[in-house]
């Protein structure tokens, strides 16, 4: 019965109980849907709830479980960012442009979690086309932070982070182009991992910035994140940018502890612009690592990383300006049809279908790619990107991880930064370098400041997600931050 199920546990505990027959995937799905639905008025983490799909998938999972088959995801409820194409389930990218758009196929990642037996509860809210750091730029209204409903959950994968933090679902998927998994994970007090660029297929994921976008997992502990990553990672013949690198068991570093872990802490990431409360929490976390055998080196520098933010705001909008060109009202999606000419209709479709942040970035990118500006902006940004990548390589040649805060502040108030794009962009100061370099990176719960969660950011070498997850797992053995849970009113 649903009321006998403890929904606050991580996915791997559900998996064990499902296998033990304590409850079925169906009852778990029903209980999950009931809780999510109850939380929605406060959180608004979802754009679409997929009850029917969830119950069908749960039934299929139960058959596999009864047959003694299935894996760690079989029967596990999951939230999927509404940027990932789901066959037969509308996929909006939180845009009016795609409000009625229903894909004809599943993206590779959704296909993989379905094959693994996951139960999709719904499509989670995000900033329109993943452009934003607060989930306020959603055409369907903002998501609220479960720790303080007046505050943002971060973004762009805010819905995915909020629903896991609120224990609505134990697992969710987000995308990270410039911190869009790690920053909301930090602001909501859970784990979020951005895989190495090329680790997870982008096929069927509504594109924002193709050379930066990566799908990644949210979870309550390192084991859950590792299991979900293990399912979604791997080469995909439909995505030529995926790497043919074998997928390891991402729990392979669990149990190794922190002894000898070489941690680089660039001082530039602990300087100006960082909230005191966040700094204190991070320093405390560094202390825990050091006390448990990690070798902390504060002399490491990434001189060009300070340029990562401007580089990002040239490359990502440039790619976005092309990626979003297809939304012209001719083929699908929102379409303005009363114009005097097809050109006018295309123009008015885009004017009416996109929100202000999306338009801002399209214009920025169009400008950066224009004749006469390309060399000064786009090309120069690509050169600096190469520099940043090399500096990461150098820094990670004698360090295992680069440590920093995930976000310079804790969750801010709804509306606080909405009218100041630059202040909003600064949220991603520490996360964006890993996107620019393409490295794997994770945000781990690492304490609180004024009652709001703080995230610790670890960036590792390409394709060394296992090491990051090993460190996260070891840290969680020494602290209980990841078990802290917000209390939602009337739930």
């Amino acid at each position, binding site marked *: 019965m649903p009321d006998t199920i403890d929904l606050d546990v991580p996915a791997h505990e559900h998996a064990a109980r499902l296998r033990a027959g304590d409850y079925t995937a169906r009852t778990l799905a029903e209980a999950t849907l009931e809780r999510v639905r109850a939380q929605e008025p406060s959180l608004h983490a979802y754009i679409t709830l997929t009850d029917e799909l969830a119950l069908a998938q749960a039934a299929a999972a139960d058959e596999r479980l009864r047959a003694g088959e299935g894996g760690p995801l079989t029967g596990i409820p999951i939230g999927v960012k509404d940027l*990932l*194409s789901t066959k037969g389930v509308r*996929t909006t*990218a939180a845009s009016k442009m*795609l409000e009625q*758009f229903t*894909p*004809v*196929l599943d*993206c590779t990642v959704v296909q993989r979690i379905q094959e693994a037996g996951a139960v999709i509860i719904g499509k989670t809210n995000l900033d329109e086309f993943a452009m934003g750091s607060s989930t306020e730029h959603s055409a369907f209204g903002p998501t609220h932070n479960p720790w303080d409903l007046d505050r943002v959950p971060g973004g762009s994968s805010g819905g995915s982070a909020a629903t896991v933090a609120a224990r609505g679902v134990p697992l969710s998927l987000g995308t990270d182009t410039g911190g869009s998994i790690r920053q909301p994970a930090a602001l909501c007090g859970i784990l979020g991992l951005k895989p190495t660029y090329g680790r997870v297929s*982008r*096929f*069927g*994921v*509504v*594109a924002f*910035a*193709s*050379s930066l976008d990566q799908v990644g997992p949210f979870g309550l502990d390192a084991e859950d994140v590792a299991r979900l990553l293990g399912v979604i990672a791997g080469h995909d*013949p*439909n*995505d*030529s*940018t995926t790497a043919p690198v074998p997928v390891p068991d991402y729990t392979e570093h669990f149990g190794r502890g922190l002894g000898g872990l070489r941690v680089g802490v660039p001082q530039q990431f602990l300087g100006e612009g960082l909230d005191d409360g966040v700094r204190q929490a991070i320093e405390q976390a560094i202390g825990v690592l050091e006390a448990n055998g990690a070798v902390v080196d504060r002399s490491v520098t990434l001189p060009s990383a300070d340029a990562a933010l401007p580089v990002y705001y040239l490359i990502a909008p*440039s*790619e976005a*300006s*092309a990626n*979003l*060109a*297809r*939304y*012209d009202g*001719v*083929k*699908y999606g929102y379409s303005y049809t009363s114009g005097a000419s*097809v*050109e006018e209709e*295309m123009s008015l479709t885009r004017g009416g279908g996109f929100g202000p942040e999306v338009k801002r970035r399209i214009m920025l990118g*169009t400008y950066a*790619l*224009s*004749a006469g500006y*390309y060399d000064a902006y*786009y090309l120069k940004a690509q050169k600096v990107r190469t520099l940043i990548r090399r500096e990461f390589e150098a820094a990670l040649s004698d360090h295992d991880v680069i440590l920093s805060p995930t976000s310079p502040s804790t969750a801010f108030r709804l509306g606080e930064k909405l009218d100041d794009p630059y202040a909003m962009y600064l949220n991603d100061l520490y996360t964006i370098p890993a996107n620019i370099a393409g490295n794997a990176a994770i945000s781990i719960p690492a304490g609180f400041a004024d009652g709001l969660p703080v995230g610790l950011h670890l960036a590792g070498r390409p394709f060394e997600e296992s090491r990051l997850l090993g460190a996260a797992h070891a840290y969680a053995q020494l602290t209980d931050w990841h078990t802290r849970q917000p209390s939602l009113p009337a739930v």
Partner: protein
Amino acid sequence: MTTATRTDYEVVVGVEVHVQLKTRSKMFCACPRDYFDTEPNTHVCPVCLGMPGMLPVINEQAVAFTILAGLALGCEIPDYSKFDRKNYPYPDLMKGYQISQYDQPLCVGGALEIEVAGDHRTVNLERIHLEEDTARLLHRDDGAGGYSLLDVNRSGVPLMELVTKPDLRSGAETAAFLRKLRQILRYLDISDADMEKGSFRFDVNLSLRPRGEERLGTKVELKNMNSFRAAQRGIEFEVERQTAILEAGGTITQETRGFVDATGETASQRSKEEAHDYRYFPEPDLPPLQVSRETVEELRARLPELPDAKRERFERDYGLTHDEAIALTETRERADTFEAAVDASGDRKYARAAAHWFMGDVTRHLSDLGPEAELSDSKVTPAHVGDLARLVEDGTITGSTAKDVLDAAFETGEMPAAIVEARGLRQVKDEGAIDEAARKAIEANPKAVADYRSGKEAAIKFLVGQVMREMRGRADPAGATEALRRHLDGGA
């Protein structure tokens, strides 16, 4: 060679040619590549429809075909190539950008030698790159105002673009270049290169400058030419038009002009101010293309014998004239057919006779079957033609009998040797029989005899014809002439 314009100007021409490649699937998805004569929007998938989140996957066959073209045209094949996005909004462009190649094409440089009126010229190439075709807008008008329908079958069809340097100097040269290029593409079997089906399309850039001047004049882009003849006419019209403007002291406007087939004239379409800024940038969905030397060498080994080499060999090995060799190497099929006929004849010494039959009566028979008919559309095989050539050359039948034998072969598909035997058509060399027929002809045609005797040599031909008629075409013509002269001259 340069064609003189009215007085002082020479025209400088470069062309851009778009060629649809004959691959199995489209450029970046698994849809069938063929779109001509297909039900609209049946060869489509989320990728070529430009659905959200869809990603391209490079068609290796299209890359190989492009490299083959590059190797055939003497291009350099760099180790590293990449795709770029060319951005422009248009309803037939499903993604709002075209995946093309900007600054690192698959093939660089190269040249093609052309022959115009016996003169040889080398046309240098700038590059060859690979891209995808757009969808097709079909304009309709139901009376209540026009509208457009979109057929996405063509979206994503592999398109190879070849750009020449401004090395052409006349409409005739341009047409010759295009013809030769199409011939090579067909030899390579990488494209239908059919203008009517849109698999071979070209634009022309041209400018005029005073002869002797190095600097190029103002460039005009010429579009909408749907045949080689149209290319030539369009260029020639532009030369006239621009010469008149320049001679009157005017200046040429940089613009795009369309050729109008009905009038043979060109009309302004778009001026430079409206030109697009395509905002090219590297395609982030595709990794750079590494072309290994092994791949290039494997492809080079796959190159067929090309028209020029084949023509030279035909001249050398079969003793054909230059023009004969050009005609018989026009297509690979024709050249293969000819060689198969020579093989079937049993000896290369019959090659010229086979060439003669192919270019004459065989061609006439085929044109009766239809404008595009090939030998394979008839009952006649190369072996038939080889057999016929041998029968004529070794004197088994006369040339005039051979025409009848060929007619019969086209009708029944029987081998010429069998037809000759069954119908008793062997050439008669029996001197007695010929002598008898000559005597009869002289008796029956006193006027021709009188003409001959009064010095009209041609009269003998008439009399030979009468001998042939008497012997149903089977007389040895030389023997008949000899017999006639013996009677006529001897009796004088």
